């Protein structure tokens, strides 16, 4: 989880600072329009912070999957001969999409595949559809990202060694 640990830590620190501001607003006795507006602005900021770090984590996961996929193609391709070698070369240069790479790397892990798919779909909601009104439960997203990345790392050595 090394490449993700620092991002998760930073997200937590930023949220903590935002929470300080929310708590300050909550501790104010006045319920006037300005105080309420400040409170809602900070609550909204916390959600935006979640969106930013969620996307950053998924981008890191995509990168980790891409580099694991390339490593797999290189090592299997270099060992293969004849038609197999050509096939691996084709796979490598096929510009495989995110889910295809996950299928190659985790062929027997259908639950992790589906979690990767959900993460990617959620990332698209934010990145392409601009759906910023949906809050994120970051604890679950972080767990899924770390589970997938850990499993890919451990599966890679087995897959590279496969005949």
């Amino acid at each position, binding site marked *: 989880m090394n490449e993700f640990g620092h991002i998760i830590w930073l997200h937590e620190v930023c949220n903590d600072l935002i929470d300080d501001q929310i708590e300050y607003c*909550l501790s104010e006795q006045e319920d006037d329009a300005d105080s309420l507006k400040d409170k809602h602005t900070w609550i909204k900021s916390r959600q935006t912070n979640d969106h930013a770090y969620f996307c950053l984590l998924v981008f890191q996961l995509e990168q980790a999957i891409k580099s694991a996929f390339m490593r797999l193609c290189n090592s299997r391709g270099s060992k293969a001969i004849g038609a197999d070698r050509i096939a691996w070369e084709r796979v490598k240069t096929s510009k495989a999409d995110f889910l295809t790479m996950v299928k190659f790397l985790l062929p027997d892990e259908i639950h992790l595949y589906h979690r990767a798919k959900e993460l990617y779909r959620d990332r698209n909601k934010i990145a392409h559809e601009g759906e910023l009104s949906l809050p994120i439960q970051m*604890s679950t997203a972080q767990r899924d990202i770390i589970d997938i990345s850990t499993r890919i790392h451990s599966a890679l050595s087995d897959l590279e060694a496969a005949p």
Partner: protein
Amino acid sequence: MPGMLDTDDDDLEYHPPTREEVFTQLENWRRRLHALYADIISWLPADAGYETEIRDHMADEGPMRHAGVPPQPVPELVVRRNSQPVLIFTPNACWIIGAAGRIYVNEGNHKTIPHTLVDSTSPFVERGWRLIRRDRVRPALGKPIDMSKWRGLPFDRLQLLALMEPANE
């Protein structure tokens, strides 16, 4: 490719819920909230001066606005002791990335950051409500993150009583 994955539709596009889907989802959310509140009420110690009230909270979430649905009532649970609010369970999100729903748990006065109750039900991970307690201990730079804190614990009677500890003193 393994056969079991070939059947997948691989549809990665986001389809916001239609008006009908919004109402169906809200009805499902209300059912899950009422079931949880029934458990909470049954976990409260008898004869200890606790009273409960289920009142309406107006939900106004992004997908509802997108579908042109005005704010809709969802149940909020207030636990009082000797007429003073001790815990308030306010539904926060029915549409949320990474969970099937989220409730904020305030300690009576709404003057602190709430605890979080997450409905973690999904086809592939653990089911049921998990409690993530508010934790203001800032992690140290470079130290490993304690993920267990964020995964929370299954919400049961003991967790509920622990949340009410200040009120029990």
